[in-house]
């Protein structure tokens, strides 16, 4: 295949070779010192007058390159390497001489002056090469791996004794062998099916599924498991949730516009369902990208209007009280980080500090999104069935809408009349009506589905650069177009409406190396616990280089060559030996590769809250397996539906989600935090859902039918951990159950904590409210308590 790889040809290399030599001259600690201490001081305080981009270069002095610094300015040399006392620059920043004080407006803080002194003393190590203008970047910026074309790498030849099952393994083995490491032996079948099932559908395998896999001795037994799981509709619920983390999904606006907007997005869920459905259908990823940026401009959306819901990707963000520039910034952020792992929004106020993203590029994107609007009436994307329920809904809605429009008309008049009370009252009523409409749409199942679309304005228009990010300080207009760093020379200017469709096509293009790499990295991360690049939303200069760059490119190529099928990538990865390794430790290997970056073993991974809670429901046979639909409004998260269907309120996230490191819906979250806090333990110790599950488990007929304790114990192990207990575990369990049964008779007293004093509105203590007397608690039986202990133990919260 012939591909035009236009990357970065536009960049002018000035003294690129000497640049390399310079950088190489510096020791890592010198480079680090310069980058962390010196460059920021110079950029912040000196470049304004002493760089090639300065409006007027003062004193003939350039401080934006090593040559410039060494050459000095009109007053001669400004530094003498190694001798701060003889250096004019140091003299100037010390403010000792009234005639020579720099920076002019304000003396630098002492620590910065000290840093400059130290730098000169070190000999002024400086990696910077001279540049012609801001359009030119140093070669390390242009050569950064992430924006190079995807390489077609030959699969390495390895002598692995038949370990490799797929080309993926050969790449892995080659790296392991380099370090003298060997892959772990394969995990046992029970571990493997548990791992695969949680990975793909976010639930544990049923005992029957485990048994079927154990009984299947055919060579493709595991492939059958993988295929079954990929075909499960629950697959989309698991992988859709990963994507919703990236899409900063929420059912609420966070900070709605005052007065005319409610906090609730009644139809955000149509985007959530679109995402789940897309994963289930294995929608080609490039199509998935196109739809989420520009579904309204695709002809396919006419045949299948539900695809319009894809635009929720852009519109489910915070509303920032209606502040348009913040909304646009949020959209640029989700597009750039989500698809390209680029922090384009860092260039809102100035050129990107690390990556080759000029501020102008930010405003090229700004122009695109400034040329879009959310229509007041969102399109209906489900067929309307005129049922009695629909008619009732319609009637209610019309009434409210009528009320709304009346109030909206009367408000300006009331304001004019200076009737404060009436005005305020009307405004309050309006807010209530707007809220009622939103809630009606959100909850009434007869309400037709709407898509949260974005549309182009009649004429697209370019945005000016906001100098220092200040909308009141406008610079030149910049055309709407794609990022310079990912474009050929003569970047096309977008003319088709807002340019959103053209942007979408540029992102989904095979010539764009970031889009497939970024997605492959996300998929890999959710199979292994960490991506090739540990920062899935930032592939920029500040990110760690990939652990397996060749494999990343190999997979990216496979991805594109196989119709951007995500499921085919899962299959390729999971049928590889590296996926099937055991998690057993090896002290010697741990010394060589303690972080297991090279994957000599499987990682032990903690379940996120969704699979943890869903698995509790599944283990207890309580899980409601219905797919899709309106969000469940349940802050306590004790409904039986899968957690992904619970309403996400970005302004007020449920405590339990926060405690379990749920993705913050205000930012793109490719990798969740993994904190371990006591509130997580409290959940497993005390939450009624967990306690009820323990009760349910030991009330199951299958449990009750078993007569001996050992067999009861086996039932619990199979149910909760999908394996049989080891003898020592059996012994431990039997001891606990027996001793608890003895205790059951003797102790029954709850260490009661007295309720706090309550106050009424006047601050007077309230005497025992009648409806709040705690019921006498019933202590758990020995078996219930034991079952709950199994649920609290690490094995229930981790996958190995």
């Amino acid at each position, binding site marked *: 295949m012939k591909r035009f790889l236009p990357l970065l040809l536009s960049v002018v290399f000035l003294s690129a070779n000497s640049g390399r030599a310079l950088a190489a001259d510096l020791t890592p600690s010198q480079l680090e010192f310069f980058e962390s201490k010196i460059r920021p001081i110079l950029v912040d305080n000196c470049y304004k007058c002493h760089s090639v981009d300065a409006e007027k270069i003062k004193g003939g002095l350039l401080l934006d390159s090593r040559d410039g610094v060494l050459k000095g300015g009109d007053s001669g040399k400004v530094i003498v390497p190694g001798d701060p006392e003889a250096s004019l620059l140091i003299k100037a920043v010390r403010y000792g001489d009234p005639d020579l004080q720099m920076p002019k407006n304000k003396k630098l803080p002492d620590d910065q002056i000290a840093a400059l002194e130290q730098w000169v003393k070190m000999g002024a190590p400086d990696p910077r090469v001279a540049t012609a203008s801001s359009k030119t970047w140093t070669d390390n910026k242009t050569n950064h791996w992430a924006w190079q074309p995807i390489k077609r790498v030959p699969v390495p030849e390895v002598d692995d004794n038949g370990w490799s099952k797929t080309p993926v393994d050969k790449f892995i083995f080659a790296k392991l062998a380099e370090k003298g490491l060997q892959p772990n032996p394969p995990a046992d079948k029970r571990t493997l099916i548990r791992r695969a099932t949680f990975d793909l559908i976010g639930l544990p395998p049923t005992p029957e599924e485990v048994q079927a896999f154990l009984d299947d001795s055919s060579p493709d037994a595991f492939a059958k498991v993988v295929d079954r799981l990929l075909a499960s509709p629950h697959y989309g619920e698991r992988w859709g949730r990963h994507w919703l983390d990236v899409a900063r999904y929420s059912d609420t606006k966070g900070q709605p516009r005052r007065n005319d907007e409610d906090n609730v997005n009644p139809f955000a869920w149509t985007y959530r369902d679109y995402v789940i459905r897309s994963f289930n259908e294995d929608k080609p990823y490039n199509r998935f990208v196109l739809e989420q940026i520009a579904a309204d401009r695709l002809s396919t959306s006419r045949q299948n209007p539900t695809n319009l819901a894809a635009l929720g990707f852009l519109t489910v963000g915070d509303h920032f009280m209606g502040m348009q520039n913040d909304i646009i910034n949020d959209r640029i952020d989700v597009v750039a980080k989500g698809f390209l792992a680029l922090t384009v929004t860092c260039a809102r106020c100035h050129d990107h500090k690390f990556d080759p993203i000029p501020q102008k590029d930010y405003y090229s994107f700004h122009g695109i999104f400034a040329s879009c609007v959310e229509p007041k009436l969102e399109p209906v994307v489900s067929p309307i069935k005129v049922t009695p329920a629909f008619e009732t809904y319609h009637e209610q809605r019309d009434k409210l809408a009528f009320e709304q429009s009346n109030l909206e008309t009367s408000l300006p008049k009331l304001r004019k009349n200076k009737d404060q009370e009436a005005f305020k009252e009307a405004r309050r009523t309006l807010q209530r009506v707007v809220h009622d409409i939103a809630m009606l749409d959100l909850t009434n199942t007869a309400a037709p589905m709407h898509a949260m679309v974005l549309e182009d304005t009649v004429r697209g228009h370019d945005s000016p650069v906001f100098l220092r990010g200040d909308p009141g300080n406008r610079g030149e207009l910049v055309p709407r177009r794609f990022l310079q760093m990912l474009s050929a020379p003569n970047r096309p200017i977008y003319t088709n409406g807002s340019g959103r469709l053209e942007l979408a096509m540029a992102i989904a293009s095979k010539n764009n190396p970031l889009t497939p790499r970024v997605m492959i990295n996300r998929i890999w991360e959710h199979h292994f616990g960490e991506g090739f690049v540990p920062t899935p939303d930032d592939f920029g200069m500040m990110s760690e280089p990939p652990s397996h760059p060749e494999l990343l490119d190999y997979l990216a190529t496979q991805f594109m060559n196989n119709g951007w099928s995500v499921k085919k990538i899962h299959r390729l990865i999971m049928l590889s030996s590296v996926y099937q390794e055991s998690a057993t430790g090896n002290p010697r290997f741990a010394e060589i590769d303690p*972080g297991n970056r090279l994957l000599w073993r499987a990682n032990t991974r903690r379940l996120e809250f969704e699979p943890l809670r869903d698995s509790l429901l599944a283990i207890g046979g309580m899980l409601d397996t219905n797919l899709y639909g309106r969000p469940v409004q349940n802050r306590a998260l004790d409904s039986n539906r899968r957690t992904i269907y619970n309403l996400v309120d970005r302004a007020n996230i449920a405590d339990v989600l926060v405690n379990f490191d749920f993705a913050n819906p205000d930012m793109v979250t490719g990798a969740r935090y993994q904190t371990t806090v006591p509130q997580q333990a409290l959940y497993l110790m005390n939450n009624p859902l967990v306690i009820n599950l323990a009760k349910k488990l030991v009330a199951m007929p299958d449990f009750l039918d078993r007569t001996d304790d050992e067999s009861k114990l086996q039932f619990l192990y199979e149910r909760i951990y999908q394996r049989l207990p080891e003898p020592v575990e059996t012994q431990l369990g039997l001891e606990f159950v027996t001793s608890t049964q003895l205790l059951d008779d003797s102790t029954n007293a709850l*260490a009661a904590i007295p309720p706090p004093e309550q106050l009424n509105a006047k601050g007077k203590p309230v005497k025992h409210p009648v409806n709040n007397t705690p019921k006498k608690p019933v202590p758990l039986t020995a078996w219930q308590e034991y079952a709950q202990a199994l649920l609290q133990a690490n094995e229930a919260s981790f996958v190995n």
Partner: protein
Amino acid sequence: MNPDEHKQVDLEDRFLTRRQFLQRAGMGFGALSLASLLGEGLLSVANAQEAEATLLPKTPPLPARAKHVVHIFAQGAPSHVDTWDYKPSLAKYDGQSIPGMEGVAMASPFTFSKKGKSGIEVSEVFPQMGEQVDDLCVIKSMYTDIPAHEVATIMMNTGSRLVRPSIGSWVLYGLGSENQNMPGFVSLRPGGPPPGGTANWQSSFLPGIYQGVSINTKVPTLNQLIENIRNPNTPLPEQRRQLDLVHKLNELHSQNLQKEAQLESRLEAFEMAFKMQTEATDAFDLNKEPQTVRDAYGRTSQGNQLLITRRLIERGVRFVQVWAGGWDHHQDLEEKLPDRAKDIDQPLAAFIRDLKQRGLFDSTLIVWGGEFGRKPVRDRNGGENPGRDHNAKAFTTILAGGGVRGGMTYGATDEFGSASVTDKVHVHDLHATILALLGFDHTKLTYRYNGRDFRLTETSGEIIKAVFA
């Protein structure tokens, strides 16, 4: 495996599972931030310990004057010219236009008098706080960016109007907590969420353990204060036995696995959770206070909040945010403002006296103030009973305890209180000063996110050294 070898492996595991954290943390410990910036693999044990993403107490890099912070948020924007910033000229020009301002001057309906040895002028609406004025540092020259409640409230708590970590999260990140059985950052609110909601105590891109635990002090029962704090079925001794079993199960589970810090830290988390059940509920149980103390604070909503606050501070909680709002007086200022002042006057004065008695005053920095101030002119919408409109250019914030000099004022507004003019203090400056009192250089308490080192004070912030004791 010999014991040393085991230790080695364990150590590296601990370190590496924290790798993500280490790469981001900057607390002003030179060696650490350098190493973390370089992404170097081998840090000393001490540094790895210090950089751990836990709530264990940490020593700040610089000498500290305060160890705890209590931020009483007078949300709604109290009128400074009616409380702490006396402007006689307003009486002189009452009803007349004043230069450079639209509308007519509105004299304060309240009288001011000199209080304490310092003779600082205090409005009659704060009689008890007036008695404590020699303990207070009154910053009269505050200003902020935007005079809109929600934005400015979030700004005061996070230093930004975007999604950023709150000051409490930064402090907890820098200092950890002195009590592992309690949340380290607690936000108390008497009812529903304040404007801005969770944004005011969020950890944002800092790890979730640094997020404030928001507690509605109006909920009827103790076990609603912290989710899942009580077990409805299992008595504590029995739960102890159950927990011991869990630990044994975990030990068996991890036998064949690589030693993982994540697995091991769960043990600590369960133990802390177990202790929290009694200790946290105990902290909120005001029935354990003598009647005299309860009376001193006043048995009001704010009295209770501040008494809870004292119980939290005593237990080593690092940062307590106390919501005491309702100050948005566009009209009826004369009638309504004194009520809000009364809400907090007695409780706060009692709180200060109580902390002094218990020797906690010097180590606890108290901050009282709103998100912005108000205009010296009548609010045009005020009608017959006027109030004042929003003003981002001037307001008063009060500091006390925690290494702050009492009985002083700092900075000044112009003749009418319309704008801060002398020794102006921006929100970032206040934040820089609070961090300095806690032993941090605000430019070095950083966290790397999206390739950039973020800090509370963004790109500015001047420490107001004049307020240091």
